[in-house]
């Protein structure tokens, strides 16, 4: 037995016969000749691994920093290569809508407008649909249908954008021109959004095809976020006498809102930069569209269309500055979206437990 003082310190409940262990750990370690188990010998022979840990965290830090490096490098190249246009047009480049390669007069505003308009319209169409799909999949869908619907939704994300473009050109555009367009003009003409001559190649067609393309991203991320909301939250709301819709609203959507906004931001990111499909149906006309039936142009489309045929240094430089504009638009939109999330959720952590 160890000495009484140690014994009390180690095991205050010594008087309780069932609580007292046979041999205290202190006693086992004291004897120098006490045999060591194989496990103990193995563990004692291992190094503390401090050097490996330090190296590992240094490598990880470099990986993280490389992201900044890449972003800064892109920004640097864009600025360096568009110097000519930057010095000639200055900040006005972003606010003027002239685009005349023949006389060498360039401004990006109509493209910025086209990019923002198509992307936001696409969100307007895609977000309700995507959330509907996600809610259906997580809350309402019979177990058997869940996997097939999820699979098809994710398949949509895997289709190359040129295929979407072809489909839009041969299916969506004729429908827009001959069937949907006239109906919209007839019933919603008073909004002035659906006026003017409608070729089918317009802002609305581009927005719809964008919406289809970003739908799977938003819905599959939103679905995963909603699945991560614990059952206890759903049951907590149901126990208060909630209907199924009230449970979805209060127990699921409310808890998942930050993740859902994140999903929307990702979708928006894709919409802003999407090039091919949009280029094929937007009509490629560098002017600020007057209605949803007017053709437009986006930042990405103009680069894709004109880069290979850009003659003259200023023209090329202006196109690269369009790239810079796209880069900045993406950053600004993301910052605004994050600020929005921050403002909505301040003081209320969204972490369900």
């Amino acid at each position, binding site marked *: 037995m160890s000495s009484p003082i140690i014994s009390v310190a180690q095991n205050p409940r010594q008087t309780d016969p069932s609580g007292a262990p046979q041999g205290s750990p202190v006693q086992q370690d004291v004897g120098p000749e006490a045999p060591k188990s194989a496990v103990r010998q193995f563990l004692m022979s291992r190094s503390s691994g401090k050097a490996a840990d330090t190296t590992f965290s240094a490598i990880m830090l470099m990986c993280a920093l490389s992201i900044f490096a890449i972003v800064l490098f892109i920004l640097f190249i864009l600025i360096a290569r568009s110097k000519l246009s930057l010095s000639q047009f200055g900040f006005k480049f972003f606010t003027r809508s002239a685009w005349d390669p023949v006389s060498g007069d360039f401004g990006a505003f109509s493209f910025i407008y086209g990019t923002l308009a198509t992307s936001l319209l696409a969100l307007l169409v895609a977000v309700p649909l995507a959330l509907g799909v996600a809610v259906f999949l997580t809350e309402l869908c019979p177990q058997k249908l869940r996997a097939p619907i999820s699979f098809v939704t994710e398949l949509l994300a895997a289709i190359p954008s040129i295929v979407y473009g072809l489909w839009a050109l041969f299916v969506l555009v004729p429908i827009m021109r001959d069937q949907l367009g006239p109906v919209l003009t007839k019933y919603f003409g008073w909004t002035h959004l659906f006026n003017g001559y409608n070729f089918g190649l317009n802002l609305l067609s581009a927005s719809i095809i964008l919406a289809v393309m970003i739908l799977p991203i938003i819905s599959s991320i939103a679905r995963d976020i909603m699945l991560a909301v614990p059952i*206890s939250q759903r049951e907590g709301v149901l126990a208060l006498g*909630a209907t199924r819709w009230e449970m979805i609203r209060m127990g699921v959507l*409310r808890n998942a809102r930050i993740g859902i906004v994140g999903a929307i931001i990702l979708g928006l990111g894709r919409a802003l930069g999407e090039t091919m499909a949009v280029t094929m149906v937007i009509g490629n006309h560098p002017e600020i569209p007057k209605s949803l039936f007017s053709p437009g142009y986006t930042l990405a489309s103009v680069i894709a269309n004109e880069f290979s045929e850009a003659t003259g240094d200023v023209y090329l430089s202006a196109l690269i500055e369009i790239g810079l504009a796209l880069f900045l638009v993406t950053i600004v939109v993301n910052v605004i979206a994050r600020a929005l999330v921050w403002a909505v959720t301040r003081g*209320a952590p969204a972490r369900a437990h």
Partner: protein
Amino acid sequence: MGVGIDVENLNAWYGSTHTLQDISLNIPANHATALIGPSGCGKSTFVRCLNRMHETNPIARATGIVKMGDVDIYQDANPVEIRRRVGMVFQRPNPFPTMSIYDNVASGLKLNGFRNRAILDETVERSLRAAALWDEVKDDLKKKSGASLSGGQQQRMCIARALAVDPEVLLMDEPASALDPVSTSKIEDLIFELKRQYTIVIVTHNMQQAARVAENTGFFLNGKMVEFDSTHKIFTNPKDKRTEDYITGRFG
């Protein structure tokens, strides 16, 4: 005021597992009734059948007669109506993390479209007082998130949330099992107060807890109810050998 519950031949299944077999008992109004038994014996399933929460699991099913007052909850009413009359407190506190303390407590009323500001304020205060939490949170009702409270406070807030809709029955599924002894004793004191106004059914692993708070106790084993009697009798002079073995700690 509380209302009594008569259960006749209640059977419940999870998939093909027959979790509850022919349970019949009378739960008297304005009393606390404790359900004890080893893990997996069906006592939680039983209380979840009393507010039709059991069937929210797609593979779950229940048959039998559960009469709450004059209403057969499986025949005469839909689950939403039942749950508006029967409050429930879960094993692990489940505050709504995106809501303030105030909104957590008021959530049941707001959910049902209740908008009267003055009555909301009054109900939140009354419920928090009844749950013995008012003094601890009254200064940051709308500032703090419900999830920022300690575990014991969260659970009392969840009790307040259940009380705010003025239920007739309060179901408690091991309400103190995740809490420390101080919070546990607060919740037990609370149950003692609350049973004057509500019918309380409490599932517990803790036999002392059952003995302290409940007038009647039921012992469940393997999906059957072995014995149901006054708490005093169950703990001093049980009829069934298995009940005796369980309460003396020979198994479970």
